């Protein structure tokens, strides 16, 4: 797919390679020079922390770096196998403190948060997963705006903190289901596990469409989250009841009811 991936050894000597790989991908994604540099610096800080604190320079360790463009978001994912560590929970340095109260270090994570538009962390059972996002701003005619998705667009919105609504539309046939699979897995890959699928504009769903929803639901459950279906059209509801899938999924009549139920689970 659209993703680019690189594995480096968990040593300082390899960090610049990961940085350059991401900066080049960022450039190709249409980020300007300043933003490319910020991505480079953020990856440097993240990987340096993993190498120095997580792996203690173990030459057999690895770091996986992935980049992809999702609509107007350039998404960098960094995976490592060092002990679980949530960098976002790390206390921030005081940028106003006088010299005597300044620690020499501790800037890396702070920089990442400042440089990127959004940062998420999760430990997915075995690996640390840091996801950093930078928005691509259309800036001149050399970088035309990201083209509209063909076919029926699938809207993705964060309706509440950490709760993502995915709204496909039209016929969820094999073709459209592939799109939906891609979108759902991208959202899950970013560590979002509380998903609502708005079905109000879906007037047909094929068996492939159901398979897509079931796989994503299983993945969300594996991540200790959930995927709920919201506002089914009568026709889709009928089909779901026929094959017994209404017993598998949590189904809510309105987004509000779905959010209320998620709030209880979370």
């Amino acid at each position, binding site marked *: *797919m*659209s993703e680019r991936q690189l594995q480096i050894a968990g040593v*300082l*000597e390899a*960090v*610049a*390679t990961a*940085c*350059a790989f991401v*900066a*080049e991908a960022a*450039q*190709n*994604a*249409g980020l300007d*020079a300043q933003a*490319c*540099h910020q991505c*480079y*610096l953020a990856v*440097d*800080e993240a990987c*340096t922390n993993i*190498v*120095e604190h997580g792996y203690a320079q173990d030459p057999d360790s690895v770091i996986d770096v992935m980049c*992809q*463009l*999702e*609509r107007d978001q350039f998404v960098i994912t960094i995976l490592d196998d060092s002990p679980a560590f949530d960098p976002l929970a790390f206390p921030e*340095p*005081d*940028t*106003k*403190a*006088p*010299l005597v109260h*300044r*620690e*020499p*270090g501790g*800037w*890396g994570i*702070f*920089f990442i948060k*400042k*440089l990127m538009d959004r940062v998420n962390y999760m430990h997915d059972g075995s690996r640390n997963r840091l996801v950093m996002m930078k928005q691509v701003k259309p800036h001149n005619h050399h*970088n035309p705006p*990201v*083209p509209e*998705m*063909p076919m029926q667009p699938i809207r993705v919105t964060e309706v509440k903190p950490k709760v993502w609504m995915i709204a496909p539309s039209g016929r969820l046939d094999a073709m459209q289901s592939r799109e939906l699979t*891609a979108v759902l897995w991208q959202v899950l890959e970013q560590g979002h596990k509380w998903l609502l699928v708005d079905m109000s504009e879906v007037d047909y769903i094929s068996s492939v469409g159901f398979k897509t929803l079931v796989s994503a639901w299983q993945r969300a459950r594996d991540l200790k989250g959930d995927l709920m279906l919201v506002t089914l059209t009568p026709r889709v509801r009928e089909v779901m009841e026929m094959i017994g899938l209404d017993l598998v999924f949590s189904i809510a009549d309105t987004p509000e009811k779905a959010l209320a139920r998620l709030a209880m689970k979370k």
Partner: protein
Amino acid sequence: MNERSKYGIPHPVETACPLPLNSMVDIRVSELEQVTLVEVIGRVDSLNAAELGTSLSNAIDEGNTNIVLDLSQVSYMSSAGLRELVSAFKKVRRVSGDLRIAQPSTRVQEVLEMAGLDTIFQIFPTQTDAVGSY
């Protein structure tokens, strides 16, 4: 339509990465009349930041405590570089010296500001200004 363009990903453009890949830094220390001038050329990252730290530390240990650090030719600096600057600064202040920064490059100025270090260090627009300030 292929996968890539379908998701709005531009095709890879065959252009060189604008950022230098090598992790080289050149540190030149020169003794002026009352000032030690340290010029840093290249990039300072976690791999080589210790070189900068050692150069500064050695100068201080030799009793050269009026230091001007010229950062005009630094193309890149990560927090590893800032760490060395703050350590050296603390060390030199303990012996009543000073470490003043001359003409930081845009990239350096950005990270100094991000860390709130632009208010901690004395920063001068030119090397001459910084040297003359002692």
